[in-house]
């Protein structure tokens, strides 16, 4: 055990020295197994300090074939990370999630967006007349794991949608139910032909929430701040239902059906 510790400290010291001295060029790449080999084959350590010389001497005496545990665990970590990320990639698991998203191809991003957020990115707005006046049509739409009953001109705050920028048009294709004055369409569970158009208005952070944990008389106290990243969407259009024609005939329809007049909540 002590021998292994010495060996590990020795290898660590060696690795740190590698970066500093020119001796590193003659050594093979950093791996404990390779280092072990170099230690056994090259007994001349006159470059190092006396203390280190002793350590080296000790480790040279006890030439055991140590299981390269660090490298094994590194491999396991890489495998786990690879499984977590997209299987199609063969990137190292050490990369952060930001690098992963940058390395996804456009198709992968679309697929991701479609699967996770049920959004499809359309082109940016350029003098489109997207913001129509209110139409009495609603849709129940699902984004991620949240469902909203949505109408024209509404605003929705969702979790941060990764693959879209501000002022982007989106099509939300997971529509569970549609309804209007005259028609109601219920999906099982999704309506395939329906679509809800939205525009990304804002990517912002929510207000800070302070998470304070305390266990009394146990000397345990934690304080963390958290700001959730949100996306604000404005719903512009709902397609897939019969819509009443215009505003003026709509008022007539409202008068005809007094029982169904919307009562302000």
């Amino acid at each position, binding site marked *: 055990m002590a021998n292994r510790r010495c060996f590990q400290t020795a290898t660590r010291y060696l690795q740190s020295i590698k970066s500093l001295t020119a001796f590193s060029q003659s050594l093979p790449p950093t791996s404990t197994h390779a280092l072990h080999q170099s230690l056994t084959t090259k007994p001349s350590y006159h470059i190092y300090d006396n203390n280190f010389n002793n350590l080296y001497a000790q480790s040279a005496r006890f030439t055991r074939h140590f299981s390269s545990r660090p490298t094994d665990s590194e491999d396991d970590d890489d495998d786990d990370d690879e499984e977590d990320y997209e299987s199609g990639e063969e990137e190292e698991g050490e990369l952060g999630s930001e690098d992963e998203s940058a390395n996804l191809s456009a198709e992968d991003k679309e697929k991701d967006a479609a699967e996770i957020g049920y959004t499809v990115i359309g082109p940016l707005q350029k003098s489109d007349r997207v913001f129509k006046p209110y139409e009495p*049509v609603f849709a129940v739409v699902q984004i991620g794991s949240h469902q909203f009953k949505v109408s024209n001109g509404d605003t929705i705050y969702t979790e941060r949608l990764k693959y879209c920028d*501000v*002022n982007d048009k989106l099509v939300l294709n997971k529509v569970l139910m549609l309804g209007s004055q005259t028609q109601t369409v219920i999906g099982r569970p999704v309506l395939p032909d329906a679509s809800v158009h939205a525009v990304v208005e*804002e990517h*912002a*952070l929510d207000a800070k929430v302070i998470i304070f944990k305390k266990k009394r008389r146990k000397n345990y106290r934690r304080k963390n701040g958290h700001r959730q990243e949100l996306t604000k969407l404005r719903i512009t259009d709902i397609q897939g239902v019969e819509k009443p024609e215009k505003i003026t005939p709509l008022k007539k329809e409202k008068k005809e059906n007094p029982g169904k007049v919307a009562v302000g*909540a």
Partner: protein
Amino acid sequence: MSLRGVWQLQKLIVSFCNWGGSSRGIRAFMESDLPAFREKNPQLEVLTELNRGYHPFLKGLYKNKNERVVCVKNVTPEDVLQCANRLRNAQGRKVVKLKTRHVTKNPSVQGTWSTELKM
């Protein structure tokens, strides 16, 4: 951020010091990432101000006359870019806790349900 297609951030002021060490990151940002940021946002007016002896900050002026100041002292250039992007993506509204995630003026289409409603 844009409200109904209108960009809310009007002006971004990048204030830095050319001597102080806390401005190192923002100076590097100005050399590397600021031109690209300018090109990406042609609607945005980006100004650089020299403010000697002070810590650097990014100031965003919004259409609702709101000012958001973010101090970027001792911040890496990548993080400065992230701050700038956050200012650009945001509305000028005050950051308060959301009451609801769904803001609507017309809550009911087919009529609000009540116990007396006969279908």
